[in-house]
């Protein structure tokens, strides 16, 4: 198989500079499962090489970002090195990272605490009950962490949930808000404005700066947002002082 045969989209993987000291390795220009796995595996490989001049790495949905020192490692030298690493194997066929966990989070769907469930369900062509049943039983994966500290982009949701972002921003959703658009959830790590629809509320904090492990989630982890009633949610939220919000964590056997 040649490198060309492996490509799932023409023009990818692509290397492009970001600012003066960044390089982006993109595996696709849209969210696709193999591109997401490729990004996670490629980042792990870059980290393992510990190459001088590379300061840090990060993944987004379908790409890897490298921040580097162009005084130590020129753009051309970095590009050549990355091309070599890209050619070393079929990154789109990479397995998910090891040590993945399933995190089950008690979630209040709808009510005044998550006021856009009805609207989102209608846009997806379902009733509210069916929407809760569907969202509450779909295991979603942490595709990437970004925007705010520890904040996961989770997916994929079923095809019914391919809803566009709202054109107008919701002024503010609270920490722990579960919002939905484009077949993904985001679980908000900080209070923030958003163009996504606020369908659920949790007491789960993704970022716990005071804790030994400040970032609660890792790419590859899976999450399940299990429905609870409003009184139960309020009880959990009042009790949860550690940021876990009543979440139950288990290992995923590979």
């Amino acid at each position, binding site marked *: 198989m040649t490198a060309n045969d492996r490509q799932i989209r023409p023009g990818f993987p692509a290397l492009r500079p970001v600012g003066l000291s*960044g390089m982006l390795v993109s595996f696709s220009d849209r969210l696709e499962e193999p591109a997401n796995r490729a990004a996670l595996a490629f980042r792990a490989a870059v980290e393992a090489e510990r190459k001088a001049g590379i300061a840090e790495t990060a993944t*987004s949905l379908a790409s890897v970002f490298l*921040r580097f020192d162009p005084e130590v490692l020129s753009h051309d030298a970095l590009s050549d090195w990355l091309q070599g690493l890209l050619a070393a194997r079929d990154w789109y066929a990479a397995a998910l990272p090891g040590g993945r966990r399933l995190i089950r989070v008690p979630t209040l769907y709808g009510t005044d605490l998550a006021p856009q469930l009805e609207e989102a369900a209608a846009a997806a062509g379902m009733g509210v009950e069916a929407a809760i049943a569907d969202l509450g039983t779909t295991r979603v994966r942490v595709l990437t962490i970004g925007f*705010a*500290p520890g904040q996961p982009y989770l997916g994929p949701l079923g095809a019914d949930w391919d809803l566009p972002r709202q054109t107008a921003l919701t002024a503010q959703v609270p920490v722990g808000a579960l919002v939905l658009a484009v077949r993904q959830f985001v679980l908000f790590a*900080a209070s923030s404005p958003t163009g996504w629809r606020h369908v659920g509320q949790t007491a789960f904090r993704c970022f716990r*700066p005071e804790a030994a492990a400040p970032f609660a989630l890792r790419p590859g982890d899976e999450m399940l947002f299990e429905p609870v009633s409003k009184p139960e949610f309020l009880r959990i939220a009042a009790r949860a002082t550690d940021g876990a919000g009543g979440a139950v964590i288990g290992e995923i056997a590979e």
Partner: protein
Amino acid sequence: MSGLRVHQAGPACTVQDPGRPGFLGQGLSRGGAADPLALVEGAALLGQDAGLAALEIAGFGGVFEAEGDLRIALTGAPMAAEIDGARVAWNASHALMAGQRLSLGAVRAGCYGYLHLGGGIDTPRVLGARAVHLAAGLGRAVAAGDQLPAGRDRGGETGLALEVADRFSGGALRVVEGVQTPLFALDVRARFEATEFVRGGRANRMGVALDCPGEGFAAEGQLAILSEVIVPGDIQMTGDGRPFVLLPECQTTGGYPRIGTVIPCDLPKVAQAPAGAPLRFCFVSRAVALEAEARHASHLAGLRRAPRPLVRHPGDIPDLLGYQLISGAVSAHHEP
């Protein structure tokens, strides 16, 4: 413990250092001083490490009292500064003796002024840095009643001043192309370079909105873009097609298209541009940009040797008659 007691502070005074690099993959942007150059200037004036923390003061100063004898330096956006009612120079270092009060007024130009302590501000480090990151909920703004502890000061001269070029009134910004630059048509890019922008009303440590008359700057296929990594300096075109330049406390990913990236050494000009200040963009090649950064790095390296003794204007000395001004005069009639 010596330090600075806060008697009064503006709404957005935060402890800042060079920030926390290394957490981009966890969604935490580097943060740190909005004007990193001011940190290096303060360190040069006090003869200390530029990694130490200082107080970043947005817009309006405050009143601070020394608890213990301190050395201080004032850099960044110039503010009216007084020690116990006597005017003192900006871009300079001063002694602030125990019990003395430093009063800082509103900025006279720019946005962010910096108050440095000898030994730095020694608040606890969180995730490796002292920089308050408001967007991430790391730390909080300084409020009246707080004590800012001073780190151990190895001591040194005060009464030194630094010549500082103006970066407090907008100006020309060099931009390099980025991942999404090709999404903007060539004529849109040309119009972008030809437009005189002004800093808009929305500005904080996350970013700065710019205004301009006329048509906005739209990318092709603007709504279909996959969320992608953001770096400080990125010029994001939001829904209305107006530029929003991202600063150190920005989010780490975003779905709005970015026409290019302001190069790091020009970014303090963006952070310090006051509302209404003119700003223009000019695309440069990577080679030109790297050369500009190298020149900037050598300017920073030279700052340590740049401070000169402060020349006091006699009008600034309230008790001038109390000074013995003629001791050391020699008589022309005596043999040496």
